[in-house]
C-alpha cells in the first residue's frame, strides 16, 4: 500500500466509525421516511397520478418514491447504518473486552487519581487482619474480592456486572440481526392471498407480486360466518378450515375455526382471516326460439359463458324474487349482459316464472331464447397467506434489543479497589453509570468498613 492508499483507507475507516455519521444517518432516515407516508406506496390510484404534474411523476418514479422503503437509496442508508454500527463496535470492543476480562486488580497511583470516590482510613491493626476484615465486608456488602500482594501491600479488587458494558454492543448487534431476519424473510418467504368458496378447496395461492404459489397441500373452507353486536357492528368473522393432504383431512387440522387475531399455521404457512364476500352460480336454459336444441348453462358470478350462437354472456345481478322490483311479476330473475360476435352488447332481464317475457325478448332481439332456472349463492372467505422463515430471527433480534437497552440504561459496572499498606486502608471505586447512586453506596460501605475496624480495636 502506498501512503496515499493508507491515508484513504484510514479516512474511510474513521468516516465509518464516526458518531457524526451515526447522527447524520439517524436524522436522514427519520426525515426521508416521511416521504412514504405522504406519497402513496405500491401502485398509486389513478386519481392521485392525475393530481400531480408530469415532471413530478417522472421525478418520483426515478427516485423510487412509489416504493421508497425498497428504493436503492433507502437501502443504501440502512446498509450504511449497519456498517456504521458494526465499525463503531469493532473499534471500541477490544478495549471494553479487556476491561471486562483482564481487570486492573491493583490500585496504582495513576488509577487512584482518576477515582472520585476515595477514602483513607488510618488504623493500628496488622495488615493480615485488616485484609480479612475488609474482604469480609466487601463480600457481604458487594462482591467477593480478589486479593493480590504486591510491593509490600495487600490489594483487594471486587466488581459487579462487568458484562453490562457489552449491552450497548448487543443493541447494535440486535439491529443487524433484525435486518438479517428481514432479508431471510424476503428471500425465502412470501405474502399472498386466496379466496375460497364454502365447500371448495385450494392448493395454490397468489403472491403479492402476482406469482402463483403451490402450497404442497390443500385447504378447504367448510364454512364462513359473520356475527354481529346488537348495535349492528361486526363482532366476529369466522372461517372453518380443513387442511387436506392427498385429499384427506390431516389429523388435528380438521374443521379448525380461524378468526381475526387467531390464524391457522400448517407446515410453516399461516392463514389469516382477512376478508369475505359472496359468489354465486346461476343456471340457464338456452334454446332456439321455438324451444328446440335446449342446452343447460351454468354461469359463475365472476365468469362468463358462451352461448350456442357464439355470444358471450355474464350475469350482472340476480334476485330470488322479482316482485320487489316489478309489480305483477314474481319468482327468480337475473339481469344478464350478452356480447354478440358482431360486437353488439345488450343487457336484459330473464325470468324463471315468466317464459312468455323471455320469448318476447328473443323475438325482438333475434337472439337465442334464454330461460333463468335459478341460482345458488355461496360465501367465500378471503385469507392472507404468509410464510416467513426469518421471523424467529427477527424476534431474537427484538429480544436482544430490549434486554440490551435495559442493561445499557439501568445497569452499571461497579468496581471497588482497596489498598492496605502500613496501617493505611485506601478505598476507591467507580461506576460506569448512575454516579449519584454509587456515591451514596460507597459512603455506606466505607462507614461499614470503619465500623468493622473500630469494633476490632475495642
Amino acid at each position, binding site marked *: 500500500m502506498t501512503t496515499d492508499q493508507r491515508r484513504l483507507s484510514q479516512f474511510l475507516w474513521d468516516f465509518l466509525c464516526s458518531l457524526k455519521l451515526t447522527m447524520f444517518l439517524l*436524522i436522514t432516515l427519520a426525515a426521508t421516511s*416521511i416521504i412514504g407516508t405522504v406519497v402513496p406506496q405500491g401502485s398509486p390510484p389513478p386519481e392521485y397520478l392525475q393530481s400531480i404534474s408530469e415532471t413530478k411523476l417522472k421525478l418520483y418514479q426515478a427516485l423510487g418514491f412509489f416504493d421508497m422503503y425498497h428504493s436503492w437509496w433507502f437501502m443504501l442508508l440502512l446498509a450504511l447504518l449497519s456498517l456504521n454500527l458494526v465499525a463503531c463496535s469493532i473499534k471500541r470492543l477490544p478495549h471494553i473486552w479487556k476491561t471486562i476480562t483482564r481487570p486492573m486488580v491493583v490500585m496504582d497511583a495513576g488509577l487512584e487519581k482518576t477515582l472520585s470516590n476515595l477514602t483513607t482510613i488510618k488504623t493500628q491493626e496488622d495488615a493480615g487482619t485488616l485484609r480479612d476484615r475488609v474482604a469480609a465486608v466487601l463480600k457481604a456488602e458487594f462482591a467477593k474480592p480478589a486479593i493480590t500482594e504486591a510491593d509490600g501491600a495487600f490489594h483487594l479488587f471486587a466488581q459487579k456486572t462487568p458484562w453490562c458494558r457489552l449491552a450497548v454492543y448487543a443493541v447494535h448487534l440486535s439491529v443487524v440481526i433484525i435486518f438479517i431476519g428481514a432479508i431471510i424473510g424476503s428471500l425465502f418467504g412470501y*405474502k399472498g392471498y386466496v379466496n375460497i368458496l364454502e365447500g371448495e378447496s385450494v392448493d395454490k395461492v397468489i403472491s403479492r407480486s402476482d406469482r402463483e404459489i403451490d402450497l404442497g397441500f390443500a385447504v378447504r373452507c367448510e364454512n364462513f360466518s359473520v356475527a354481529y353486536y346488537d*348495535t349492528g357492528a361486526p363482532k366476529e*368473522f369466522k372461517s372453518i378450515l380443513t387442511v387436506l393432504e392427498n385429499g384427506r383431512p390431516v389429523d388435528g387440522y380438521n374443521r379448525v375455526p380461524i378468526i*381475526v387475531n387467531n390464524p391457522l399455521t400448517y407446515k410453516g404457512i399461516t392463514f389469516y382471516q382477512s376478508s369475505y364476500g359472496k359468489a354465486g352460480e346461476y343456471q340457464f336454459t338456452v334454446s332456439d326460439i321455438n324451444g328446440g336444441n335446449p342446452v343447460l348453462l351454468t354461469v359463475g358470478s365472476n365468469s362468463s359463458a358462451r352461448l350456442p350462437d357464439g355470444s358471450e354472456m355474464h350475469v350482472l345481478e340476480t334476485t330470488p324474487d322479482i316482485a320487489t322490483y316489478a309489480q305483477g311479476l314474481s319468482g327468480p330473475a337475473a339481469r344478464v349482459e350478452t356480447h354478440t360476435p358482431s360486437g353488439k352488447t345488450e343487457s336484459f332481464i330473464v325470468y324463471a316464472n315468466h317464459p312468455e317475457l323471455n320469448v318476447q325478448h328473443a323475438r325482438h332481439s333475434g337472439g337465442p331464447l334464454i330461460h333463468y332456472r335459478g341460482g345458488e349463492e355461496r360465501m367465500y372467505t378471503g385469507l392472507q397467506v*404468509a410464510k416467513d422463515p426469518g421471523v424467529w430471527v427477527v424476534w431474537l433480534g427484538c429480544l436482544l434489543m430490549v434486554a440490551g437497552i435495559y442493561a445499557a*440504561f439501568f445497569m452499571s459496572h461497579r468496581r471497588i479497589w482497596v489498598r492496605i499498606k502500613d496501617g493505611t486502608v485506601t478505598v476507591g471505586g467507580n461506576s460506569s453509570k448512575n454516579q449519584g447512586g454509587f456515591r451514596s453506596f460507597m459512603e455506606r460501605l466505607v462507614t461499614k468498613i470503619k465500623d468493622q475496624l473500630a469494633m476490632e480495636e475495642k
Partner: protein
Amino acid sequence: MTSSLLFNITTFFYLMSMLAFFAFIATRVKALGVAGSAIALGGLVLQTIAIGLRWKESYALGVGHAPLSNLYESVVFFSWTIVLIYALLDLKYRYRVIGAFVMPFALMGMAWAQLGLHSGIEPLVPALQSNWLLYHVITCFLGYATFAVACGISVMYLIRENHERATSASDRSIVATFPSTRVLDDLNYKAIMIGFPLLTLGIVTGAAWANYAWGTYWSWDPKETWSLIVWFIYAAFLHARITRGWAGGRAAWLSIVGFVATIFCYLGVNLLLSGLHSYGG
C-alpha cells in the same frame, strides 16, 4: 358516580394544578408549588378510579374490554400516563416548576377528550380483540408520556440557556427559579432513558401483534413508519450526548422535535393519513 363525571372532575383538577404552578412561577410562593403537585396527584388518583370505573361500566354493558379502544379512551389514557410520569419525577426529584411545563399537556388532552370527542363505550371491533392490545397500548403510551415530560423539560432548558447567555448570575427573574441547565439536561436524558425502552417495547409488541393477526410484522404502514421515525429521532438524541457539538441545546431541540413527531405519530397519522390504525387508537 359515573366515570364520565369523574373524568370531568379530573379535568378541573388538572386545570387547577396548572394554574397553581403558573402562580408558583410568578410569585415564588413555595406553598403554591406544593399545592400544584398535590392537586395533580389528587387528579391522578381520581382519574385512575375513573378509568377503572369505565372498565367496569363496559362489562355492565356486556361489551367488557379495557378502556383503550378508541380515540377518546386513548387520549384520556395518554393524559393519565403524562401525569403518572410527572408524579414519579416529582416524587423523586421535587423540581416543582417542571409541572408548569408538563401539566398543560395533560390538561389539553383531558379537555379535548371531554369537550370534543365521542365518549360512548362501544364494543370491540374484531381487529382489536386480542391481549396484545393491552401490552401494545400501555407500553406505547407510557413511552409517549415520558417524551411529553422530556419535551416540557427541554423547553425549560432552552429558555434557561437563552436567559443565562443574556443576563448575569445575580438575576431574580422568573427563569432563575428553573433548575440549572445541567440538571435539566440530565432530567431530559433520564426521561428519555425510560421512554426509549418503552417505545422500543411498544414497537416490538405492535410488530408481534401484526405478525400474529396479519402475518407480517412490518408493512411500512404510516403508523408503523412514524413510530420508527420517532425511534430514529430519540436514538439520535441518545447518541447526541456522546457526540461533540450535539450535547446541550441541540439535544434539547431533538427532544422537542421527537415529541412533535410523537404527536404526529399518535394523532396526525390517524387524522391526516390513512392506514391500519384507522379506528383511532
